């Protein structure tokens, strides 16, 4: 019998809330975490607004030693470690003080790049013929698996410790990879999550592609407009989300609080065939990913109460809604409720899937649907297909049984996960 897998801990470092309680409050109230970014303005970016978590020095020193912070310059690792340690604690788990690692616990903690600011620092030194003066910590902060290495060390994890990377799908993929490992009995507990660095050196490439909005530099909070007719590109963001996944048996035996059950999901790719390219999705693959996730989860499409979409606030939002509608064979008033956290936090890139999944679990557990901001003017191609009442613009108190969460990324990659409210039997 494969293990059933549940979520018992959450941690988040988001542009509109650092820590679970502030984040829960922010997504209930519809607080935007998007602000004007003076550095982007100074560097003459087209898009000069961003979603960036605010961390005080005193908070940071609660997670890192003085030595670790010496020459530390990796925002992604910073966010990832804080979210991960918070999730571990939230799950009621302790960090083993023993010399022996926790063989049954591991992590899949994804990222797009690691320590881009540290890397920049190193590149300058190398070019100034100062390679010998780099010090010992460039590798740890700039290797892709830096974040999982830091997390593994902090928590003393002795099972698989790895970093996954699949662009904006990364966070959702990490949850599914962790789920599979527990389901198959190879681990009891896995910390799933993902992070993304902050700042111009991460966001510039997107700005150069003109996929970020340049129309809201004076009105940052209105900048991220998923599903809106006036959506004009995404707002770059950063942060990290973390979820403790655990076998149901383990969670029950230690009396842990269970937020939700991971019923299953699916990962696939459109192979950059058909309408798919490096940057555009193959619609057939997206539909197939969603439909397969539903089937793998042992539910039917009609069971889904809420969709937490990828919905980035580009011209592709209408296509995404169409894909959901076709995959689930639901439309009009028969369509599930749908929301996008990106209206509040922007597009947190490799961290998007995990931050949004934390938000999805919170909505499931606390029984509410977070509002969609900035879509007073819903895109007509969206309202042609689904009823506007299915896109709540105010927070709705509502019991939700099943959420479908999807993320899509560059490289034509897709992930969809199905979460169910856990009812104690």
């Amino acid at each position, binding site marked *: 019998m494969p293990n059933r897998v549940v979520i018992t801990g959450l941690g988040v470092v988001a542009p509109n809330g650092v820590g679970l309680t502030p984040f829960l409050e922010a997504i209930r109230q519809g607080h935007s975490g998007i602000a004007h970014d003076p550095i982007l303005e100074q560097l003459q970016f087209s898009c000069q607004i961003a979603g960036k978590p605010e961390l005080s020095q005193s908070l940071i020193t609660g997670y890192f030693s003085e*030595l670790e912070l*010496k*020459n530390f310059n990796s925002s992604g690792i910073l966010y990832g470690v804080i979210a991960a340690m918070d999730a571990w604690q939230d799950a009621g788990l302790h960090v083993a003080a023993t010399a022996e690692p926790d063989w049954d616990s591991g992590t899949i903690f994804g990222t797009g790049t690691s320590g881009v600011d540290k890397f920049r620092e190193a590149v300058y030194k190398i070019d100034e013929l100062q390679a010998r003066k780099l*010090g*010992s910590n460039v590798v740890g902060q700039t290797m892709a698996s830096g974040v999982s290495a830091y997390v593994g060390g902090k928590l003393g994890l002795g099972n698989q410790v790895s970093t996954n990377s699949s662009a904006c799908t990364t966070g959702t993929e990490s949850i599914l990879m962790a789920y599979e490992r527990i389901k198959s009995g190879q681990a009891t507990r896995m910390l799933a999550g993902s992070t993304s660095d902050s700042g111009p050196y991460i966001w510039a490439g997107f700005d150069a592609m003109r996929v970020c909005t340049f129309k809201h530099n004076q009105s940052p909070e209105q900048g991220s407009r998923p599903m809106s007719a006036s959506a004009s590109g995404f707002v770059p963001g950063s942060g990290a989300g973390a979820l403790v996944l655990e076998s149901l048996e383990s969670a029950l035996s230690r009396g842990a609080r269970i937020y939700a059950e991971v019923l299953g999901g699916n990962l696939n790719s459109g192979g950059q065939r058909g309408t798919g390219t490096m940057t555009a999705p193959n619609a057939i693959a997206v539909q197939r990913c969603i439909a397969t996730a539903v089937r793998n989860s042992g539910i039917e499409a009609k069971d889904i109460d809420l969709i937490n979409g990828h919905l980035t606030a580009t011209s592709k939002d209408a296509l995404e809604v169409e894909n959901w509608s076709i995959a689930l064979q639901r439309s009009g008033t028969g369509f599930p409720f749908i929301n996008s956290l990106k209206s509040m936090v922007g597009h947190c890139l490799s961290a998007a899937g995990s931050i949004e999944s934390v938000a999805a679990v919170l909505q499931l557990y606390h029984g509410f649907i977070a509002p969609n901001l900035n879509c007073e003017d819903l895109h007509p191609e969206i309202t042609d297909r689904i009823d506007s009442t299915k896109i709540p613009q105010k927070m709705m108190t509502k019991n939700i049984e099943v959420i479908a969460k999807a993320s899509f990324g560059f490289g034509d990659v897709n992930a969809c996960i199905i979460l169910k409210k856990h009812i104690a039997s």
Partner: protein
Amino acid sequence: MDRQLLLSKLKTIVASYSHDKDALEYLSETTDFTKDLKINSANLVDVVLDVEEEFDIEIDNLSMERMLNVSAAIEIIESKLKEK
């Protein structure tokens, strides 16, 4: 440079990398960086860089390899200071 002054400067440098604060307290010329002070071996290179900066000297790779304890460090620092 006075030996005591040199030792106290070195102590300040290694303090931020040492994981054994007691051993640090009793730092002497026989103190070993990794065995006694429990400095992570990867951080030895950072100790050397901090020493270079503090004393405005350059420590070559061969000397760096030998700089594993307080007495070797003092000897190397003193000889590099003389070369200046």
